[in-house]
């Protein structure tokens, strides 16, 4: 979740959607995002919508949270029906946070149950939860698998103690291989999240983290450059000069190192910051974001997209719970994405994935710009020429590092 909510239109009280969504949703997969806004510790770099006070009161407290979230599931079901959307099984669920595993396992099980009862899960549904290496047990992981979870994404971030300390992460890095093994034993697919470019992290530190992650044998790794967002504690530390941010060249070198080591270990990039062993190991839920699929985001501050309408919920768990208790939609703002904007989003999201953008779907000016991007070494010439099938814009490694510049060129 982004820190500040965007500006947008005021949504109707009942959260009702315009009739246009039905046509624009046709043929799109439907996913559910469930936000759990609680953490044991607030990390200095984190700008997500999360709270350490577990007793926010009323329906916002940790113990009442599952029930409150399920109220939104019920509301979502009503809104989608009223908008004339056909029944669609849920193809993916992603429980994120915060720290979802701070919720009792029973509550996570209840939430998945609610989604299942309301919409049905597709037979091959991908159901992921994020987890902190600190807050899982072999038994808990087994129970999640039994309840229908298929995948777990651990917030490993780094294997180097001083880097973890700077990030305020409290878990013991030595525990990571264990939790990965427990999850795989429980039948769950496993992903590890890593962060590079933390103040004080050397290239060798980063290499250690990558090697440690690969040593667990995982089939999926996400590696993100640290972004210090305004309003975080780390931003204050940087401003005061207590922390020095690595420059973009350092981040670029670390990205290249990650790509080298992950590729050598048999993991292939399928999105700018994501690598998977096989296509089946990729996060289908996240691919839905980049492909323009539909999803409903449950929880405070959660964002949704259905048929060309994007909206976002009120941020504070208490306000969120109060709205639902009063029978109102928790949506705080929304936008109906017009054609031009949809085109920009399509390019912006589509270039991020290895599958790329079909050149035939681009506007004529964008099509004309592809040759220049190939010449600059940003776009793969084979894909652009269609040697492997349809002509596509697929980024080279340099192109991935300059993806935003590519988008600006294609959208100019």
């Amino acid at each position, binding site marked *: *979740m*982004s820190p500040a909510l*965007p500006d*947008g239109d005021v949504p109707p009280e009942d959260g009702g959607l315009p009739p246009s969504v039905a046509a624009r949703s046709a043929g799109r997969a439907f996913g559910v*995002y469930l936000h759990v806004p609680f953490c044991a510790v607030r990390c200095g770099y984190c700008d997500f919508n999360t709270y350490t006070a577990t007793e926010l009161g009323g329906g916002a407290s940790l113990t009442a949270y599952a029930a409150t979230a399920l109220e939104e599931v019920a509301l979502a079901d009503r809104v989608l029906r009223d908008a004339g959307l056909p029944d669609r099984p849920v193809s993916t669920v992603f429980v994120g946070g915060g720290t979802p595993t701070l919720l009792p396992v029973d509550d996570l099980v209840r939430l998945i149950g609610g989604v299942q009862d309301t919409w049905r899960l597709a037979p091959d549904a991908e159901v992921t939860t994020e987890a902190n290496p600190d807050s899982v047990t072999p038994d808990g992981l087994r129970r999640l698998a039994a309840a229908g979870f298929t995948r777990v994404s651990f917030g490993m971030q780094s294997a180097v103690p001083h880097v973890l300390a700077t990030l305020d992460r409290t878990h013991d890095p030595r525990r990571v291989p264990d939790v990965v093994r427990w999850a795989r034993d429980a039948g769950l697919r496993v992903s590890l999240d890593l962060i590079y470019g933390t103040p004080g992290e050397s290239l060798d530190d980063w290499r250690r983290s990558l090697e440690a992650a690969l040593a667990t044998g995982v089939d999926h790794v996400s590696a*993100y*450059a640290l*972004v210090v967002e305004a309003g975080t504690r780390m931003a204050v530390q940087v401003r005061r000069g207590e922390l020095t941010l690595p420059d*973009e*060249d350092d*981040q*670029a*070198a670390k*990205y290249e190192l990650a790509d080298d080591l992950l590729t050598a270990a048999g993991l292939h990039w399928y999105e*700018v*910051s994501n690598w998977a062993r096989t296509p089946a190991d990729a996060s289908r839920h*996240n691919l839905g*974001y*980049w492909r323009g699929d539909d*999803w409903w*985001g449950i929880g405070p*501050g*959660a*964002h*949704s*997209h259905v048929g060309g309408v*994007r909206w*976002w919920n009120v941020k504070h768990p208490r306000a969120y719970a109060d709205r639902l208790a009063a029978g109102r939609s928790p949506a705080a703002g929304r*936008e109906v994405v017009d054609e031009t*904007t949809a085109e*920009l*989003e399509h390019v*912006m*999201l589509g270039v*991020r994935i290895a599958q790329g953008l079909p050149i035939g779907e681009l506007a004529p000016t964008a099509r004309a710009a592809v040759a220049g991007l190939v010449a*600059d070494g*940003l776009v793969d010439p084979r894909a652009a020429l269609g040697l492997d099938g349809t002509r596509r814009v697929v980024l080279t490694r340099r192109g*991935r*590092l*300059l*993806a*935003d*510049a590519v*988008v*600006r060129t294609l*959208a*100019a």
Partner: protein
Amino acid sequence: MSPIPSAAAAARIAPAATTPELLRNFCIIAHIDHGKSTLADRMLQLTGVVEARAMRAQYLDRMDIERERGITIKSQAVRMPWEVDGTPYALNMIDTPGHVDFTYEVSRSLAACEGAVLLVDAAQGIEAQTLANLYLALENDLQIIPVLNKIDLPAAQPEKYAEELAGLVGGDPEDVMRVSGKTGEGVEALLDRIVRTVPAPVGDAAAPARAMIFDSVYDTYRGVVTYVRVVDGHLDPRERIAMMSTRATHELLEIGVISPEPVPTKGLGVGEVGYLITGVKDVRQSKVGDTVTNSAKPASEALGGYSDPKPMVFSGLYPIDGTDYPVLRDALDKLKLNDAALNYEPETSVALGFGFRVGFLGLLHLEIIRERLEREFDLDLISTAPNVVYDVVLEDRTEVRVTNPSEFPGGKIREVHEPVVKATILAPSEFIGAIMELCQGKRGDLQGMDYLSEDRVEMRYVLPLAEIVYDFFDQLKSRTRGYASLDYEPIGDQVADLVKVDILLQGEQVDAFSAIVHKDKAYAYGVMMTAKLKDLIPRQQFEVPIQAAIGSRIIARETIRAIRKDVLAKCYGGDITRKRKLLEKQKEGKKRMKTIGRVDVPQEAFIAALTSEGAGSSGGRDAKDAKKK
């Protein structure tokens, strides 16, 4: 002695009916902020010309910019009655511009007077520009009345500066008058002194009319208002007048005096000062220094001292928003009506688009015009670094006049002439070394040095004007902690070893950054400019070499390394709207970029590269600095 004389006495000094013996024409020579306007206000009040309650501070400085900067750009003349020993007199106070760029206008104002009040701040002493104007006044044989102002200030040192003034104009320190324009102390005595010591004008009343134009101002409602001093004969309402430089004739629609508002009169006689309105719309038809005569009975010889204003400094002015180009053109056309020295031609820059190459009298003139364009016409402008005019003699002896460095000819050059000035610097003697070092570095040639007092010196240099317009003011101020003052006047040209340094961005020449510099300084300029641009231009997707070159020879090089990372690592559900908005903003930003070859250069980079150091460090800032002291 006293202001409004009796009705009978007033009749003796009525315009067009005053004998020259009862006229006194004087000006006030003073440095910026030494209190000239305040003293003038006090005189207007004491002579009863302006009532206290109608008093607008600094009545004579009309334009807003003048008022804000405390400097006078355009002069005016006010007629004031004053009685001494029972005899009424008409005093004409002719206001003079106070800055170096307007030396010619100053000289014409001085030529309209018989006396000058040399006004000096009793806390600061004389400044270089005042000294230069004093020399001009002495050359015109004006009677000088030395006066120390601001004697009410705690920091005033009247003894010290009275001695300095006495040393300059001759005479006794006791003869130096002491006034306070602020409190009015000593101002009546000064008016008396003007009557007693300034000679009455002398002229031939029977001769054909000859009047000298000392100022010419465009007024929206009246057209051009011309200020004149009658030397011989007289001018009458409704007669046809002729301009002697052009032989153009005009009907005199109105003639009168300023007191302090324009008052039509029955004419102007020998020695009188007043205004003429002929209905012309452009000050070029009524030029400062020209002689006005009667069309039917013209004088055979014009008064001496006329010359056309000559632009000394050129700069390219470009609208930041290209669609403002017509607005800029119209604005310049309007300003030109009131400024005979302003001239311009359209020019096109690869880097900056459509604009004008504008010629100015000097740096202050440049800054005033630029500020008026921005303020009165709501324009955002980029101005290129100011440069002087070069006369280039080619091998085949053809001559090329260069007002824009990018037009400096390539190929075989025989010699290059650059304008030089005579510069006068006044400063406390502790800074002699620093000033000598600066002037030597600026290719200056020391002509002489005198002590004005025990601890103040006057240094005289011949310097290339190009060095002055570069960053001389700023350097002088910083090396003398703001205490030095500078005056200069053009004295001709010299042959110098000059070369054009071009700046290339990824091999493409950026015309706006070309400069003509001395051969010995070309390398330093190249290194400075390439380093500066390296900092100002954002990294691109590719490596961008920045080179400085003389012809095809590269003398300095920097490289902007290619940007390696330009991607947001995370882009999930909630990031999409935010990220899209960011991209939309970046797309807007790209529109404000100029593209040189393939390199996107933000507008701000051009502005920063063109306005730091060299440009912008002009007399305008000098004026402000002077006020802070």
